[in-house]
């Protein structure tokens, strides 16, 4: 098991920059818009996001390991597209609701939405957005087989990729100003719209 954990970790480390690229468009505007301003609060936000990713990885790893060879990559492709659409929609909804609290509909939605759980939700959704390193990891689990093996492998993969997510906290000092929060909110809407467009174009 240690060997499998290590193997996942190494794969995560080597493909980490790619994962960072996949996570940053969602995490950076979110951190700016959230505007917590203190490193401690932003660490909490990033941790919640990472926890979401971990949960998604473990669940996905276990499921893939269990289903083994019967789960073909094309199935995951559909799941990835669907997850991308939902992630983008959550981003846009979050930004609009947060950016326009003076609008009645937004205020109402804010009360109904589990706004405080958005980082976790984003983490889960991004976790199942299939990027190439993730596919490699999945192919390896299919080879290995077994729910526990899958979960352990993804635990290592998560640890490896997470190391590279930590530098995103450098945005912390910028998040204090109202201007930065506004910019973050607008960027979140733009990025959400972009991903919706690409999901629609099927790319």
């Amino acid at each position, binding site marked *: 098991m240690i060997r499998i954990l290590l193997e996942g970790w190494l794969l995560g480390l080597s493909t980490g920059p790619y994962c960072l690229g996949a996570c940053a*468009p969602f995490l950076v*505007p979110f951190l700016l818009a959230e505007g917590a301003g203190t490193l401690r609060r932003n660490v909490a936000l990033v941790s919640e996001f990472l926890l979401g990713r971990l949960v998604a990885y473990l669940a996905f790893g276990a499921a893939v390991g269990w289903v083994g060879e019967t789960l073909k990559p094309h199935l995951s492709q559909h799941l990835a597209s669907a997850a991308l659409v939902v992630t983008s929609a959550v981003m846009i909804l979050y930004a609009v609701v947060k950016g326009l609290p003076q609008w009645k509909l937004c205020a109402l939605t804010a009360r109904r939405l589990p706004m405080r759980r958005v980082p976790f939700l984003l983490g889960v959704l991004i976790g199942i957005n299939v990027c190439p390193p993730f596919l490699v990891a999945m192919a390896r689990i299919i080879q290995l087989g077994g729910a526990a093996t899958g979960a352990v492998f993804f635990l290592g993969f998560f640890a490896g990729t997470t190391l590279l997510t930590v530098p995103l906290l450098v945005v912390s000092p910028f998040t204090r100003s109202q201007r930065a929060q506004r910019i973050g909110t*607008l960027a979140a809407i733009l*990025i959400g719209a972009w991903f919706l467009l690409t999901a629609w174009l099927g790319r």
Partner: protein
Amino acid sequence: MKLHQAALPTRTSVVLATVLFLALVGLTAGAANGERLIARIVWAGMIAVMAGRVFVTGRISRWRSVFFIILAWAFIVQFKATLIGLTGSAFITPDIQEVPYCHIAIASSFLNHLYQQYLAFMSGAWRQWSPLTWGVVWLGVTLVLGQAWCSWACFYGGLDNGFALLRRKPLVKWVWLPKGVRDLPAAILIAMLLLSLVTLKPIFCLWVCPLKLGTGFLEPDQLTRKLQLLSFATIGIVFLVVLPWLTKKRAFCGLICPFGAWQAFVGRLNPYRVQIQPDRCTQCQRCIVVCPTFAIEREGLKQHRVLPYCNRCGECMDACPTDAIGYSLVGKPFASLPPKTARIAFLLSAWLIGGAVSMWFVPEVMVKLWRWVAG
């Protein structure tokens, strides 16, 4: 024309214009000969005359705009001519799928550049270092000129500046922006940076740049290509042409361009600023009305603050009835300098850098025009 308070004596203006002319010729004429050399000397002379008019009248905007618009259109002509030379067509060709770069794309895909340079550095591929060299050139220009690039050297700025000048008075009065809208270019910059990194493609060039309307290098998929064309056309027509023409505001620079936001951020390294002197300002708001890029807000004016997005065009200085707004230099070494010195130093730097950039393509276009006229 009535002289502005900032007007300089004729003799000083002539000396400054001559220094500028010699510097431009010395900097750029060395590598040319024949008709190209003549074109460069003529263009340097024209720049010196325009700068001299600014010094002697104390009004910046008119001659800066003339220079800026020539620069922009010469760039477009040269760009198209090069494209025709390369592909035989100035319009879309299916075989070209490369995306050419300009300074705007460099800003919005800066993270990709860093990554590529890191790879080039690690593998010892020295030939791929050119973006880094360009980075050094950009840093140098930014240190000297900062945000002023957007009103003195950028071809997009020259385009919307030109359309904004087509009317004497705005057809539609547009003075205020809803809160937060002025930050849209910064949001576009962040989105472009991150999306370019994740897709490893220059997203600004592929989806936003109106200059791509008449060129190739689009993604081959039909629907995607149509959407890209629609995006280029909408942004170009609305923000570069129609809005500036209707409102006299430079809508592309003020509301879209990620490079403007980038320069506003990095340009803080540059010591020139535009400042309002509280003891002179009467809060008449003329500066807000004439500022083409929405760089002065009502709330900010009360505290005599200009936004970092200000691109030092000088419109507000020409319009201010009390000479309360002007160029200044920040930093301890400059603290004791009189405002006039800061103004002269800035204008010389701006004409020099803008002039040197224009030397790349304006003389080339002059040669082409000359050959065309001479048959």
